[in-house]
């Protein structure tokens, strides 16, 4: 799944997520929150509910151990 602001898109490959919570913890602007839906392996992946706050720092992407999250710049 993905969510976009006018500047950035946060993509989550939900079935790779293992619910470690590191992305939520390292995000400096609290874009991500713990989700309530389980993926096919039984893990609750995060949701970028506050996507409009995203500053594109990619800390979530760089710190995700599971290659499950990445950030794109939205092209105008």
């Amino acid at each position: 799944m993905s969510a976009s602001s006018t500047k950035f898109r946060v993509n989550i490959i939900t079935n790779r997520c293992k619910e470690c919570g590191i992305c939520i913890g390292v995000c400096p602007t609290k874009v991500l929150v713990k989700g309530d839906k389980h993926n096919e392996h039984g893990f609750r992946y995060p949701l970028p509910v506050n996507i409009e706050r995203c500053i594109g720092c990619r800390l979530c992407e760089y710190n995700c151990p599971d290659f499950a999250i990445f950030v794109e710049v939205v092209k105008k």
Partner: protein
Amino acid sequence: MVVSTLESSHPLDKYLRTARLPHIWCPGCGLGIALGSIMRAIDKRIKEGTLKKENLVFVTGIGCSARTSFYVNFDAAHTLHGRAIAFATGAKLAKPELEVIVIGGDGDIAGIGGNHLLHAAKRNMDLIVLMITNFVYAMTGGQVAPTTPLGLYTTTTPHGNPEPPLNVVKVVSSLNANYVARASVTHPALVEQYVYKALGMRGFRFIEILSTCPEIFGRHIGMRDPFTLYSTLRSKVIVKQSPSIEESDLDWGKGFVIGEYLVRDNPGYLDRIGRGLK
């Protein structure tokens, strides 16, 4: 929040055997962070034309870290416990145009494989060795490792680890390596930076990457929550530009100094036997 389905793929997917994902590592394991950072360094080198994808070979031994060879979409070898450096040395000597990267845990590289590490560093063998330190034997269930802190409970030191940890950075620095650095998965940009730099060098290049093992090590120290362990490690990491080797002790109490301990450009083993590429 406008939610839509995924349209693009992860920027590192081209270097990963995505059919094998999700990987086997536990939730919050730092290995994936380390691997991602290594891949971004490689990506940068490939994009700028200073590394050919087909020339890169990953060699691993046995252990959690060694499983990186499962997931990299390059030539890869998952060999024997402790023997990755020896295997890698053979491959590099036989075909010097290869860029051979060894990845292993501290048990694999500095425990059972310690002698090969010493001798590869001694001969300044043209290899990159990335030792991922998680302070414990994780794959076998939490036994004491070369880097386990003094006094810590493990399954084989139930009365507390009586041995101080091995400072591998210091050991390798005392030999003939061209590059010795310590990084941490809590600082992935630095992992990427050091690996990128090592890829442009010759001779023996060694990077210790401190990592988090919440499932086993975290449990032993009461930090099973991945982010708790991650942020604790992060708080203990002290980044320095050119740290002195005297600051390199692996001490949970005092914290860990990361940075580039040693950078030089001595002839590598291949140069010395007339098989260098330059």
